[in-house]
């Protein structure tokens, strides 16, 4: 079992990543293609996530498929104590594809082991969220014209932020230079720095965040610094306003530079940035639709050629 599921970005080869990005590009040209006419897709959200669920369900609808599932496990048998395995086995009788989000780490991999129906991991705890990574890659490629040899600056919570960890893994094929900008408490964990060394990825660490530190960025990837991540609230109060991007800091940045953010944002990107042409986070979210249409078609076995027809 295990089949064509997408559980972690680490499973994808360079060729596969580029292939999925080509497919996403095709869906950007025309997102409405009746490819899933006779398919039923289950979206099982054991942990609520409106943004991700709407994006996936829109993708299925634009592909002509039908959606079943739940947005909140409170009303399901999970709340009565049914095991994940039993829920997955039951839903496998009805659906051609299962898209699932779960609060526990490793849940999607386990689900893919107990069923023949392909699984798309829409987030498992703080572990993996591969469709987010695909839309990040798509946004980077689209705005920079390439994935190769870019300076990527990651800012904010680099300790718990799964999106930045997955991005590092996915970028290992493309010779990036990463810059890690984070407060001490939320520094990039050693395990990912070791990963960089092992995979010949260059990285530089900074603790200050200003006009000069970001001057050479091609991509500025902002993340949220969450209060609940701090053991020391004095420390939180000290750093919470340090890692905020203001328009005044963009003066020295490169003309091709784009600002990404996985959203939702709270205050780490000031509103005055929104109208700057370098702000890209809302388009980035839109790219999620194309990336997810590509992932859905691929796990169901549809090829790029079939989609083009």
């Amino acid at each position, binding site marked *: 079992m295990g089949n064509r599921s997408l559980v972690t970005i680490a499973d994808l080869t360079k060729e596969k990543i580029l292939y999925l990005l080509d497919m996403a590009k095709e869906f950007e040209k025309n997102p409405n293609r009746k490819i899933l006419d006779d398919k039923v897709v289950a979206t099982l959200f054991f942990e609520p996530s409106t943004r991700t669920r709407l994006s996936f369900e829109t993708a299925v609808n634009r592909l002509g498929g039908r959606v079943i599932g739940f947005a909140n496990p409170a009303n399901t048998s999970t709340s009565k104590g049914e*095991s*994940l*395995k039993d829920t997955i086995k039951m839903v496998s009788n009805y659906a051609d594809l299962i898209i699932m989000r*779960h*609060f*526990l*780490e*490793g*849940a999607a*991999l*386990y689900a893919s082991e107990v069923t023949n129906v392909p699984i798309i991991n829409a987030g*498992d*705890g*703080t*572990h993996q969220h591969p469709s987010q990574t695909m839309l990040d890659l798509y946004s980077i490629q689209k705005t920079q014209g390439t994935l190769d040899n870019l300076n990527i600056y990651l800012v904010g919570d680099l300790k718990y932020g799964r999106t930045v960890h997955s991005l590092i893994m996915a970028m290992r094929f493309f010779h990036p230079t990463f810059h890690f900008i984070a407060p001490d408490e939320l520094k990039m964990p050693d*395990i990912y720095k070791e990963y960089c060394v092992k995979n010949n990825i260059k990285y530089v660490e900074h603790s200050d965040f200003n006009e000069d530190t970001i001057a050479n960025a091609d991509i500025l990837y902002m993340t949220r610094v969450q209060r609940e991540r701090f053991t020391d609230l004095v420390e939180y109060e000290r750093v919470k306003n340090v890692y905020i991007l203001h328009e005044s800091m963009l003066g020295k940045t490169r003309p091709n530079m784009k600002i990404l953010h996985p959203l939702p944002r709270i205050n780490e990107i000031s509103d005055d940035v929104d109208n700057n042409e370098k702000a890209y986070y809302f388009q980035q979210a839109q790219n999620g639709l194309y990336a997810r249409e590509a992932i859905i078609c691929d796990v169901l076995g549809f090829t790029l050629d079939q989609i083009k027809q």
Partner: protein
Amino acid sequence: MDTKNKLLVAAIENGSVIDHIPSDKLFTVVSLLGLEKMNLKITIGFNLTSKKLGKKGIIKIADKFFTDNEINKISLVAPHAVLNIIRDYEVVEKRDLSLPDTLIGIVKCNNPKCITNNEPMKTVFHVVDKEKGVLQCHYCEKEQTKEEAVIL
């Protein structure tokens, strides 16, 4: 060997001998294998002289052959122990107990948010560094050392 230095233990006809157990791990191995609940003839040697370890422990059990699962548990706490299998008073097999590549259903994942701690399922760990004894959970991918590992 000088008879005075010889250990006065009867040879076993059929069974298993686990030799070269580090002394400080001997009773861990005993309880892991649940020997105190067994109704078999068992000889346990503690703080015996060993050229390799200084002090060692040894366990002889008549009419008992360990399963792979039990052997993997021993390898986790006493990685350089040697298992001798005895049939008809002869050592028919001698095995160095090194960590296997995969441990199934033996170690608990120390990540409380791991699926394995919340579902009725077996844990799976990949041994990513046999020398240092680093184990990685197959599901949540968190790593732990074998010293930190809680054995199920």
